[in-house]
């Protein structure tokens, strides 16, 4: 039951993200290239998250647990990598603005970079470690 609750919650969060993205794009008017890239990354993240949810659902349907000690360890490891990526992307985000754009990025832009990069690192390292075994 706990597994099913987690899966339903993940689907609701993904639906919420997609709905927010839809309303954002509808009200955005003309969309710039960097916004298209950000939206693309969000869609990739949602897609990968849905793959993880589907994988868990498949196990629950077979009467197996959605998550066990191996996946819990992988979660911790991927979370650690995402944390390191968040620190470096916060640092790198401000540097990129200074070096390449000639001005500092706004706080909101840096926050978006940090969330997207750390989210991406989490999902990719989770999937990699899950396939590797440990």
């Amino acid at each position, binding site marked *: 039951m706990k597994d099913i609750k987690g899966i339903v919650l993940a689907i609701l969060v993904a639906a919420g993200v997609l709905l927010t993205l839809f309303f954002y794009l509808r009200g955005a008017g003309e969309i710039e290239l960097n916004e298209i890239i950000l939206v693309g990354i969000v869609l990739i993240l949602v897609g990968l998250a849905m793959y993880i949810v589907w994988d868990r659902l498949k*196990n629950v349907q077979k009467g*197996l647990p959605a998550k*066990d*000690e*191996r996946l819990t360890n992988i979660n911790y490891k991927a979370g650690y990598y995402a944390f390191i990526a968040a620190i470096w992307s916060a640092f790198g985000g401000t540097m990129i603005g200074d070096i390449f754009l000639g001005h500092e990025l706004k706080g909101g832009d840096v926050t978006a970079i940090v969330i997207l990069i750390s989210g991406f690192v989490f999902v990719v390292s989770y999937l990699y470690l899950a396939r590797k075994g*440990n």
Partner: protein
Amino acid sequence: MKTRIKELRARYDLTQEDLAKKIGVRRETILFIEKGNYNPSLQLAHNIAKALQTTIDDLFIFEE
């Protein structure tokens, strides 16, 4: 680390999925332990040994 899980599974005519259901883990976890790609916790090693009616010492072959 090598294991005798596959051999003992065959003795009791258990699939990876059957064993996974018995001890409450995912099938992939059994697969990775068998291949030596995942070192289980002591608790999980104990549960597998119990399910296969053997001991941890007999189930896992530690190489120095």
